[in-house]
């Protein structure tokens, strides 16, 4: 699952951090600064920073104690962006993530986001299960989930 292979002329940043919630805002700010010098579309940069933040929240919530790994690749000519977040997790958390992913990946992104909001509003387990639906709708990107043993890789491609 190495996401830094075959980069060609792509620019990229790669960060690893221990799963601590307080680092997420810091990483989000860093990504926003990186994108400000990498792409010209400010709205797109904001959406990517939001998506990265949501993916990191997801990773930190459900990660086992190993590090969380994020790579952001930028193609200079097309401003195509790939965000990839990888972490290890428990079998139970991976199964939950896959259930949410399978549910939100089909259908109209807007309808799915609104449906997930309604569902989140009545959940009593403290979880929202809203992040992936939000990313898919707000960025218009292509989400993908890869699972290998206890390693989870969530990626999004934004054209």
């Amino acid at each position, binding site marked *: 699952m190495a996401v830094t292979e075959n980069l060609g002329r792509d620019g990229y940043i790669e960060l690893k951090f221990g799963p601590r*919630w307080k680092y*997420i*805002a810091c990483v*989000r700010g860093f990504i926003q600064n990186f994108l400000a010098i990498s792409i010209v579309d*400010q*709205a797109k940069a*904001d*959406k990517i920073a*939001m998506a990265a*933040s*949501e993916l990191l*929240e997801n990773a930190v*919530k459900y990660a086992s104690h190993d590090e969380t790994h994020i790579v952001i690749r930028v193609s200079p000519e097309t401003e195509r962006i790939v965000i990839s977040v990888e972490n290890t997790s428990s079998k139970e958390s991976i199964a939950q993530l896959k259930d949410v992913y399978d549910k939100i990946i089909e259908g109209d992104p*807007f309808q799915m*986001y*609104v449906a997930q*909001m*309604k569902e*989140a*509003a*009545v*959940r009593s387990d*403290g979880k*929202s299960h*809203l*992040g992936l639906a*939000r990313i898919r*709708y*707000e960025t218009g990107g292509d989400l993908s989930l890869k699972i290998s043993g206890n390693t989870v890789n969530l990626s999004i491609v934004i054209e």
Partner: protein
Amino acid sequence: MNKLNIQPIAEERIKIDITDIPQGIQINMTGDIDMEDPSILLDPFFEKIHSGMIAQGLAEVVADFKGLNFLNSSGIKAVAKWIMKLTDLDEKTKYIIKILHNKDITWQVTSLPTLTFLVPGGVKIE
């Protein structure tokens, strides 16, 4: 103190003020809502607003998000939970939530309008 006697919130990264307006109250959010579980802060706050609005028969809450730089999906859940409470209200107790958004903040442009689809007629956005 405002007419609902609700204390404002002033945390490290988020501030929520409440002011009286003729038709109800206005809440102003500034900062970032990006904590791990914003429901601890937001659920009781929105519940107090909801029950106060019903008890006093007020018509409108203006929710000013314009100063909110970031709201994570757990925070969106808390707002959605508040909005969904409107579905239980009858003609006598119902009130409207008017959301003010900042067109220069991307997440507000994409995410906040979706809240109007949760309870048709219950939420307006400007």
